[in-house]
């Protein structure tokens, strides 16, 4: 058995040239995590990012070929629109969908995997980018090649020079 990550720690990794993976362990059965990701009444309760965001729109047509659409609103009134299409729907373990943040961003193919062991569920979302270049740009964006840790440093650095 591979060493499981700790409960409550979000891990960001790069499993291949074109992917970013987010992983986290939850103290809950996977059926519940499946519902939390696929039912609007649940999604709107938690998928909200930092304080000050709400989700006024959450539409989910949960079937292969079905579309999803969410809108986030920040307290300053600005909105973020994200949508895509479901490709594979295998409850309660595997959900494959496309994701678009708008014209400016490369479309990704996201795979949500839920595995349960002794009442704990490991969630892994893998985002597949169209190319290594777009993945690297999204991930690295920076002055040097590196891991996801460079995000924070770079963002902070850029803030100081703005």
């Amino acid at each position, binding site marked *: 058995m591979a060493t499981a990550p700790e409960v*409550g720690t*979000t891990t*960001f990794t790069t499993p291949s040239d074109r992917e970013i993976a*987010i992983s*986290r362990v*939850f*103290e*809950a059965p996977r059926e*519940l*995590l499946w*519902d*939390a990701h696929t*039912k609007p009444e*649940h999604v709107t*309760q*938690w*998928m*909200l*990012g*930092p*304080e000050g965001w709400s989700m006024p729109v959450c539409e989910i047509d949960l079937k292969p070929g079905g579309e999803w659409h969410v809108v986030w609103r920040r307290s300053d009134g600005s909105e973020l629109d994200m949508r895509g299409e479901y490709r594979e729907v295998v409850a309660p373990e595997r959900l494959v969908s496309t994701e678009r943040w708008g*014209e*400016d*961003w*490369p479309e990704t193919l996201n795979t949500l995997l839920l595995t349960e062991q002794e009442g704990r569920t490991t969630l892994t979302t893998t985002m597949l980018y169209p190319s*290594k*270049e*777009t993945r*690297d*740009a*999204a*991930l*690295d*964006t*920076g*002055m*040097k*090649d590196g891991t*996801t840790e460079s*995000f*924070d440093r*770079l*963002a902070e650095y*850029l*803030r100081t*020079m*703005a």
Partner: protein
Amino acid sequence: MATDALSLTFSALADPTRRAILARLTAGAATVKELSAPFAISGPAVSKHLRVLERAGLIVRTREAQWRPCRLEAAPLKEVAEWADEYRRFWDMSYARLDEYLEHLQGKERNDGDST
């Protein structure tokens, strides 16, 4: 313009030499000659990279002076970096909230039996 601004930024940042050039420019404006020095590539090759960076709006080249110094234009970079940073923070904080929400749901299920 054939492509949108952010796509240009993405493709400009995808090359390690161009990222190194940007890193050098964070220390201040520099000429093509100065920028070429640390790289094992020709001046024209560096100029080619500079054109890509300029087209993406990541650098600005002064027109007046003969030696045309380049300086970093941080706005597009900032936009991309903030997005990446925000994206990571977004999931980290959402999952923390999901932890609490699942706990709430599990408490409720124990009372209600099968929930929707």
